[in-house]
């Protein structure tokens, strides 16, 4: 079974020999300094060069045992294409927003429709996706999108947006509809360039910040519209939500995606129980992976697999300071894991 077959089978709900172990990229960054130094494809240059981006991603796959290719290395590409100002960071700090294009939610009507072929870094990401998909037919190439609400918090000050949810709901709906349409277009382009699986990261749309009623009104419809369109194009979708999802457990059942990725604080046994019918991805603590020790990474990974995690992954991507040895520890545990075959246990 190839890495791509295994991931696609899991997402389709078919049986596999063991859970895949991946790190999707995008907000859940799949890069570390050790590999950058070894390959010479370093941050920040790799953020704006399709060839370097591809090589760093490939080297991560080869040197850590992760079973996917995931780009870009940040979640600012869409916001930048919409006119936000981004600071590229350095070898360990990923690109981050320093200037928002909007001062108020009402100004969203001034945003230009996104053209993934020309705007900001999006063409570089498309080119890199094509390179990766062309060179690797057996490893899944992941297309990354930022969820509309999180994208909105990169276009306008988060506190302004959060207040507007209650005070100017119509304008927020307008902005989110617009961003959803544009994310769909970017997603279509990623799939057109060879992405096998789509991941939507929506870190700001956490139940902890919004609570269930705002999550239901503002987040769920946008995410589902993107997911449904990606499904029409034949691609499975994983949705990542940061922080505590407990306040929105019930609502997560209404997500149209095959799989939900959760933060380190989420208890997997509980999540599997409550959000039944969905595959769960996660959630080896990003900090544990950075700091170790190795035996604890082993125990946590093994425990997650025993709890029935469907896809093993770092909870919130990788810190660039994570040693390769630590990532390998996690991937080796997944690869050594044997699923119990319940048919023979009866």
């Amino acid at each position, binding site marked *: 079974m190839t890495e791509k077959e295994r991931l696609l089978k899991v997402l389709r709900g078919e049986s596999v020999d063991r859970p895949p172990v991946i790190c999707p990229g995008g907000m859940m960054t799949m890069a570390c300094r050790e590999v950058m130094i070894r390959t010479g494809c370093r941050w920040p240059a790799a953020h704006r060069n399709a060839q370097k981006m591809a090589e760093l991603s490939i080297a991560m796959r080869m040197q850590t045992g992760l079973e996917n290719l995931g780009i870009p290395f940040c979640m600012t590409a869409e916001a930048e294409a919409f006119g936000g100002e981004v*600071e590229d*960071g350095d070898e*360990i*700090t*990923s690109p*981050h*927003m*320093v200037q928002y294009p909007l001062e108020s939610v009402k100004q969203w009507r001034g945003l230009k429709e996104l053209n993934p072929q020309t705007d900001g870094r999006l063409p570089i990401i498309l080119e890199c996706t094509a390179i990766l998909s062309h060179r690797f037919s057996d490893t899944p190439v992941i297309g990354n999108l930022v969820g509309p609400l999180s994208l909105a918090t990169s276009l306008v000050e*988060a*506190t302004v947006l*959060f*207040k507007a*949810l*209650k*005070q100017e709901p119509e304008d927020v709906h307008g902005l989110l509809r617009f961003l959803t349409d544009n994310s769909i277009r970017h997603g279509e382009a990623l799939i057109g360039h060879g992405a096998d699986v789509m991941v939507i990261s929506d870190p*700001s749309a956490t139940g*902890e*910040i*919004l*609570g269930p009623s*705002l999550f239901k009104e503002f987040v769920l419809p946008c995410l589902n519209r993107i997911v449904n369109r990606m499904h029409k194009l034949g691609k499975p979708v994983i949705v990542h939500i940061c*922080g505590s999802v407990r*306040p929105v457990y019930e609502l997560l059942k209404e997500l149209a995606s095959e799989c939900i990725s959760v933060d380190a604080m989420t208890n997997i046994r509980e999540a599997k129980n409550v959000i039944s019918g969905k595959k769960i991805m996660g959630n080896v603590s*990003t*900090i544990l992976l*950075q700091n170790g020790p190795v035996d604890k990474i082993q125990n946590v990974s093994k425990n997650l697999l025993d709890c029935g995690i469907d896809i093993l992954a770092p909870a919130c991507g990788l*810190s*660039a*300071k994570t040693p390769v040895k630590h990532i390998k520890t996690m991937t080796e545990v997944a690869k050594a894991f044997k699923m119990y075959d319940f048919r023979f246990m009866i």
Partner: protein
Amino acid sequence: MEKSDILYRLAQSVIDMDATRAAEAAAAVIQHNVDPYEAIIEGLAKGMDKVNELFENEEYFVPEILLCADAMYAGIEALRPYLPKETTWNKKKIVIGVVKGDTHDIGKNLVKIMLDNAGFEMHDLGRNVPHAKFVDTAGELKADLVCLSTLMTTTMDGMQVIIEDLKKAGIASRVMVGGGPISPGFAKNIGADGYAKNAAEAVKVAKSLFQEIHVPLILKTSELVSVRRKREGVRCSPEMK
């Protein structure tokens, strides 16, 4: 109108996220000669305490907290001209910011609102703040507390750099840290004086940091008298009765 009615209206306007009603209730405070300081503490701040409770019970979430805080500020703004200017004389000074390399500031903003509400004098450096800026500002203001926030694992180590630089510069400010990846263990290891896991806890921790310390107020007699007079003025100013 009874004083208790006015205080209730102040508190309720904060709970209801209604800045207009908060300002109206504040106008009633002045009209009915209620002590504005008492109106803030027993009215607006009481409302915010209830809001904290609703937040802890997951009835309110971040958008609600932000609007409640706006209502509270609308009330305080309306009362400010009637407060003696020196009400801040004994406030502890806090410098707060998100460490360089990170621009996530929702958590920091919430902590700022809560600490401000709890009576601290807040100096907000914003986000993506260079290490030296914390040290310089803390030194200039003789800050009592420096609050460092980050959501990114990669910028955590910056906190330790700041703590060491503060020590090197001989600045006596205490340091409280918080943010997604920060644990109590990490806070202890880097030599922070306090750790808070959320905004409500930040208030408790900040208060506890100053509880056991008795900073001797060395003031000349005349100043002491004037300070005391002003302080009394705050509590029950004859002009306002």
